[in-house]
């Protein structure tokens, strides 16, 4: 039978996740049915119930809100259908039981890598005095955004990076245009950031656009994103973006399919299964460009 897949919402990163899932399933000749929940918990629950009604072999869930995962886990378990969470960490990741599993990457690590990258580059440039940092946050209700931002604060609290001072942080809802307006407002508020650290690449693009619009010297500011989407690598090659973190969502998708098939066969899988993040800087950018 099918594997039912429900994805939290449609954004570029998750579109890659879908590609990863669909491509791998096709290779294996495994039919999948992908639904997108548009960020609506109710809708995601209904999609899962529809999958259960259609009696699918397994369900892959990119959960919208980690806090809803216990409900989902229970629904699948009651119906006796194997379940794989992907990308977003479920709240009950430690107690998924034998028929459910998780594959993803640790958001906190992403934020940490990103902030460390910025810290290193600032140190290398010889910035020693107070270095102002602005944080562009994703949707604050997403654990992803919260953990990534928290990691930045934690890195800035380390002695070797303590010259980094967070001067303001606001949410731009993962939206590049909102980020652009926010950055512009920050500029006019008189901020002179040494770094702009963004919860994802697309918001970083917005910040870059805003800075370039006022002919800011891009060498004097470190811009960091997360995801290493293709466009980000191009921005990096041009010297606009300085740090990003490669989240291998396609690999997450591939593993999710594999794990779902194993579970459906009644096999045990290792959970949680972490796909590592990788720091991308101008030094190694070519390597990642080659992946696209």
């Amino acid at each position, binding site marked *: 039978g099918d594997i039912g897949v429900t994805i939290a919402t449609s954004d570029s990163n998750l579109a890659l996740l879908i590609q990863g899932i669909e491509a791998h399933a096709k290779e294996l000749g495994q039919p999948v049915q992908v639904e997108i929940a548009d960020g609506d918990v109710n809708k995601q629950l209904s999609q899962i*119930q529809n999958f259960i009604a259609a009696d699918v072999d397994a369900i892959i869930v990119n959960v919208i809100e980690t806090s809803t995962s216990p409900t989902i886990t229970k629904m699948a378990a009651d119906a006796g259908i194997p379940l794989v969470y992907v990308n977003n960490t479920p709240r009950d990741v430690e107690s998924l039981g034998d028929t459910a599993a998780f594959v993803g990457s640790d958001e906190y690590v992403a934020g940490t890598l990103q902030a460390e990258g910025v810290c290193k580059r600032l140190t290398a440039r010889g910035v020693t005095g107070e270095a102002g940092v602005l944080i562009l946050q994703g*949707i604050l209700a997403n654990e992803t955004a919260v953990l990534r931002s928290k990691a930045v604060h934690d890195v800035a609290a380390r002695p070797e990076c303590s010259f980094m001072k967070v001067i303001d942080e606001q949410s731009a809802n993962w939206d590049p245009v909102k980020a652009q307006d926010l950055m512009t407002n920050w500029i006019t508020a008189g901020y002179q950031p040494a770094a702009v650290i963004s919860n994802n690449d697309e918001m970083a693009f917005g910040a870059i656009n805003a800075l370039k619009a006022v002919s800011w010297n891009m060498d004097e500011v470190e811009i960091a994103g997360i995801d290493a989407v293709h466009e980000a690598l191009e921005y990096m090659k041009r010297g606009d973006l300085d740090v990003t973190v490669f989240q291998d969502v396609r690999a997450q998708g591939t593993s999710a399919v594999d794990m779902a098939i194993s579970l459906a066969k009644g096999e045990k899988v290792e959970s949680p299964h972490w796909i590592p993040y990788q720091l991308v800087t101008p030094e190694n950018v070519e390597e990642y460009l080659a992946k696209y």
Partner: protein
Amino acid sequence: MTARAIDPGALETTASKSKYQNELSMALVLVGIAIMFEILGWIFVGDSFLANQQRLSIIILQVSVIGILAVGVTQVIITGGIDLSSGSVVGLSAMVAASLAQSSTDPRALFPALTDLMPVWPILAGVLAGLVVGVINGGLLAKTNIPPFIATLGTMVCVRGIAKWYTLGQPIGLLTPEFSWIGRSFNVLGFPVPLPVLIFLFVALIFHVALGYTRYGKFTYAIGANPQAARVSGINIGSHLIKVYAIAGLLSGLAGVVTAARAASAQPTMGTAYELDAIAAAVIGGTSLAGGSGRILGTVIGTLILGVIMSGFTFLKIGSYYQEIMKGAIIVAAVVIDQYRRSRKDRV
């Protein structure tokens, strides 16, 4: 005494036959869409769409929250108004209810002293939160002269902000099983029926009666049909609008409680854009945005049409982008077909 005096007996029957004619017409559209999915199901999926008990209950379950909102917004629209805040109220009341429904197993409970409460408290709190917003909406309209669109747009933005501020954006999980019980299914005549569905149908029934058979209902129609005439007939428009919006708020609050119970958790973004679906359900069901006409029965049918469309596409395994494209087209088509049927009937 009119020149074309028509046999009054004949008229009586025409009138009573045609009372639910619009609803009948829409019900036919609903059946038509369902049959379309049934046929497509046999052709493309080799399976029946309707002969699946579970699916039938999901069709209603997944729109029961929208349906509860739609019952409220139908009344608001009949008065000639609109309520854009209902989706945000779902978010707020879900948060408020959930915050009082946490189980003591959560070490990080929001109000550690208020865990493991009886479900009646979170339910009351959630509904009350909705009521308060509704009274504010109604009060704004009664006391000032601003358009309902702006008043409820304002509360929509504001209430969403409050929902996020409540926990600084954090979701609330680990609710007591007693509370999440509201989201579960029950055996009704041998069928498993989810409680949210029963709540929706119960609410619909109550307000079907209230609109059709009480003064509350007559005032609601009168205000929407002709506010000037309502006023000179002695209706206190302000105080009636407060009632109508308060009820809509209360129902949104209830919808929020149901949402939290279904998910056994609450997020401040819950219910985003639900107001549009709720309004769509009402309008598809024949409620006119010009005010003065509409019925809950129609809204229930409109809600079911949305439910069938959502389930149908998933059932047919249609890619989600195509689903969206077709969902838009079908909403329009449903209303066009309905209008066409009605106008043909008029001509005969």
